[in-house]
């Protein structure tokens, strides 16, 4: 068991608390541990980044937070506390009221899954209808127009169809759908990976503006460290279904603690030094059969004997800095 991480403030200040989350997929070849004991807190209005290679479990975790894991997968343990209420203990009917209204999501590739034959505003209104039957038709129309404006689109876009919009606009429509019920948390899974740099920046700035406007907390999932550096307050680095590292973003870059984070940062191109690019050798482990001890040890440059046998504790080695690595065993307070 991992100690629940504490950031500053008392527990009740936290918007979202995740404790020892386990998500498993039962396949013919065995149990895939897609999320393997993740714990973290999210404060109201915080921007949390989540990076990892494909297959590291970041998208699975997003789905688990929404309670949208489908068979053969299931949440095998842990707690997801939103305002202190455990989402995993809710009935499906109760969860339906929370989903979208309190915790919302822009799924991966959402911009390509808009309904091609429905007008934009109707797609926004549909989401609202799912949750709140009390609003009149005009109220809902008005709210749809408002959220479009909030994501920097004109109200007229509501009357258009998805094929009339550019990629960046479609992605904003997806964001509008996600915020239509004014949630407290938005999870954005790779919201800009299909977009060009210029549009990518506009979309991220839309997210930033929404946050100022609504105070919504954002969990940004991606693999672009540059985007994370520009946007998030804290960054979690996920590896093989676990958090390797969780630190305030400035400290992640100025002094990365986990060797994997160090390698990720070293592999980044920068405009200051034009020179060798350093890749990370090796491949992530199969989630069917995780390595013994520390899951990162087969690729770790600082591997020690202990790493092959003993699972490192995920612990706060410095204030606000959580790491799962034996290199920091001694500095444990």
């Amino acid at each position, binding site marked *: 068991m991992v100690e629940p991480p504490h950031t500053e403030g008392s527990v009740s200040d936290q918007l979202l608390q995740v404790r020892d989350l386990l998500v498993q997929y039962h396949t013919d070849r065995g149990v895939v541990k897609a999320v393997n004991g993740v714990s973290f807190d999210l404060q109201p209005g915080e921007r949390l980044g989540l*990076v990892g*290679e*494909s*297959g590291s479990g970041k998208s699975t975790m997003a789905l688990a937070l929404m309670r949208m894991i489908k068979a053969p997968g299931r949440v095998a343990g842990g707690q997801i506390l939103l305002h202190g209420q455990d989402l995993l203990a809710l009935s499906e009917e109760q969860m339906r009221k929370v989903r979208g209204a309190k915790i919302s999501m822009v799924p991966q590739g959402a911009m390509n899954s808009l309904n091609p034959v429905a007008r934009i505003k109707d797609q926004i209104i549909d989401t609202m209808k799912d949750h709140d039957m009390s609003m009149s038709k005009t109220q809902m129309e008005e709210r749809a127009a408002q959220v479009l404006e909030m994501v920097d689109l004109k109200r007229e876009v509501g009357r258009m169809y998805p094929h009339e919009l550019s*990629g960046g606009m479609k992605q904003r429509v997806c964001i509008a759908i996600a915020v239509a019920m004014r949630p407290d948390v938005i999870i954005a899974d790779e919201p800009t990976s299909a977009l*060009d*740099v*210029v*549009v*990518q*920046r506009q979309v*991220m*700035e839309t997210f930033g503006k929404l946050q100022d406007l609504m105070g919504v907390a954002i969990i940004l999932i991606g*693999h*672009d*460290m*540059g*985007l*994370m*550096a*520009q*946007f998030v307050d804290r960054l979690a680095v996920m590896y093989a279904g676990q958090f390797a590292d969780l630190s305030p*973003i*400035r400290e992640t*870059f100025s002094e990365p603690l986990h060797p994997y984070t160090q*390698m*990720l*940062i070293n*592999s*980044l*191109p*920068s*405009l200051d030094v*034009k*020179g*060798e*690019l*350093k*890749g*990370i*050798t090796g*491949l*992530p482990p199969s989630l069917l059969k995780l390595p013994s001890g520390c899951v990162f040890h087969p690729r770790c440059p600082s591997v020690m004997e202990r790493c092959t046998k003993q699972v490192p504790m995920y612990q706060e080695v410095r204030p606000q800095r959580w790491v799962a690595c034996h290199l920091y065993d001694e500095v444990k307070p």
Partner: protein
Amino acid sequence: MTPIMELRNVTKVYGSSGLLAKKGTAALKSMNLALEADDPSILAVVGESGSGKSTLASLILGFISATEGEVLYNGKDVKRLSNAERQVYRREVQAIFQDPFAVYNPFYRVDHVLNVPLSKFKLARTKAEAQRMMEEALSAVGLRPEETLGRYPHQLSGGQRQRIVVARALMLKPKLIIADEPVSMVDASLRATILESLRTLNKDLRIPVVYITHDLATAYHVSDQIVVLFRGEVVESGETETVIKNPQHSYTKLLIDSIPWPDPERRWGQTKEEFEQELHSVARQATASGSRWMPE
């Protein structure tokens, strides 16, 4: 010395050849480009989607033909190559694509993409020789042949699949490589490895590389020269170092400012308002300008 690949005044218009004579859109306008083989360099072609960079790649690879102008391979128009010459051109100009899954036929094992060119271009005399060549190429890009050969594409990771494509290019010993967004769908951890192998192809095997991307940061790292495309036209070109450190055209500046720097201390270049004004003025300039759009 004739350049290995030359584009002379090439314009590509899509959708103009209908019976109803629809008005086509020009994806590329009066493009001139020459790639030298004796001083092989990496040329980065940078631009957003719709800038014409993929059209440029398709023209060089001979997948589409130019509406106007000529595409010359070793001084010969690629439209007028004989069958034998065409087969040589096919072998010598190779590509690495963006999507490391789509390039594999799901029906076949991954060996297929390595096997077919070896037999079509008659590069291996025996099965054993072909096998040895495939294994060598895979090892050269850091893959274990026994873990990759015989697998179906969906059984490998994206990074492994992309490295097999790089291995394929390596194995065919081409004279020119077009890398069309080779890392935009690959995990950050592998990005550097693949870009590094592009550099190896260029520096060690002395193969000119055209690196097509929307990411100026990697373009800066990898390339010697750079061409910035905007709506089918070259807006700026030159030595990479000069262009990136001292961009002249406002569109190039905009692209550079849009890079999300992996450094929390260094924020996105401009405020949003400035940035949007910039975008609008760039678009206006482009529509207002005639055929050739010179840097400021």
